[in-house]
């Protein structure tokens, strides 16, 4: 029986990120921090990415994930967080715009391993 009152550990991006971290993989976390208009995923949604470009979760309905993954791999390399913005008014709209007409801001940061 479906019971959404408990974490779906197999699909939860932050649980997956912790598992990757425990396996010694480098991880970036992307988070929707702002939305305007109709946006497919709410503020706070996560996409987690490893250095090989494997990913789990979503920050849109699939429209911009490819671009976020590419940027995330750079963020893992540089160790510096980055703010990304996507929307129909964006010059990259033809490539990775949101067809729903909304705009979103996505914060991409490296998961910093504590010593």
């Amino acid at each position, binding site marked *: 029986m479906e019971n*959404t009152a408990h974490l779906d550990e197999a699909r939860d991006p*932050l649980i997956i990120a912790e598992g990757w971290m425990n396996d010694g993989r480098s991880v970036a976390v992307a988070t929707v*921090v*702002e939305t305007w208009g109709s946006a497919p995923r709410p*503020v706070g949604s996560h996409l987690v990415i490893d250095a090989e470009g494997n990913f789990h979760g979503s920050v849109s309905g699939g429209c911009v994930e490819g671009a976020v993954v590419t940027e995330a791999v750079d963020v893992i390399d540089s160790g510096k*967080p980055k703010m990304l913005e996507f929307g129909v008014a964006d010059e990259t709209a033809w490539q990775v715009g949101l067809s729903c007409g909304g705009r979103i801001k996505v*914060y991409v940061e490296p*998961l*910093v*391993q504590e010593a």
Partner: protein
Amino acid sequence: MDSASLRTLNAERRARRAAILVTDLADGSSRIVREHDEVSGELGEAVARAFRSGNSGSAEAGGHSYFLNAHLPQPRLVVIGAVHISQALAPMARIAGYPLEIIDPRTAFASADRFPDVTLHADWPEPVLAEHPLDSYTALAAVTHDPKIDDFALKAALDAKCFYVGALGSRKTHAKRVERLLALGATPEQIERIHAPIGLDIGAASPAEIAVAVLAQMIRAFHARGAGFKSKGEAA
């Protein structure tokens, strides 16, 4: 985010405790705030709002831009009694976004035939709640009318600080229930938290209408948690 914050955040989420990840967007530094942690100033106000609403968002405080990601446990509803009201309540609660479970040791009542697609425990509340504990993000509605089944669960709900505790029965029935709960060791302050007669006063008469009244009362209790909001509209 750093690895320690992620581990702490996931541990809180697994334990069904509310937590907020506060990230300074200038440098990416982060920390975890739990529900009763003291946070001062503008940031403290934003944190309190996020705990109340469950909404994530940005906040400006002390010249810094922060992002607050609120992780609240999914609120859920445990119903004691696989009765006619529960049959109406189950689909309504699911639509409203509150997963529901039903506990009733009477197997004739707690049958999959009567409750398709509902999590059913055809057992006494004591063993079921030992295995699936109540918490402050759980609501409990006791609707069997039978003290042997309801009382233990009501006491457990008060002890677990369930955000909503409701019990079916007339004022007279409730007066007797209060006596029994006191004998079980509940305090008068705890007993004050029980919504009885159960449900908002909307003149509910049919089982389905009573289910609406219970669901509405529970939703109000959820959004009023920690707000000192105390009003006990009553119906059934």
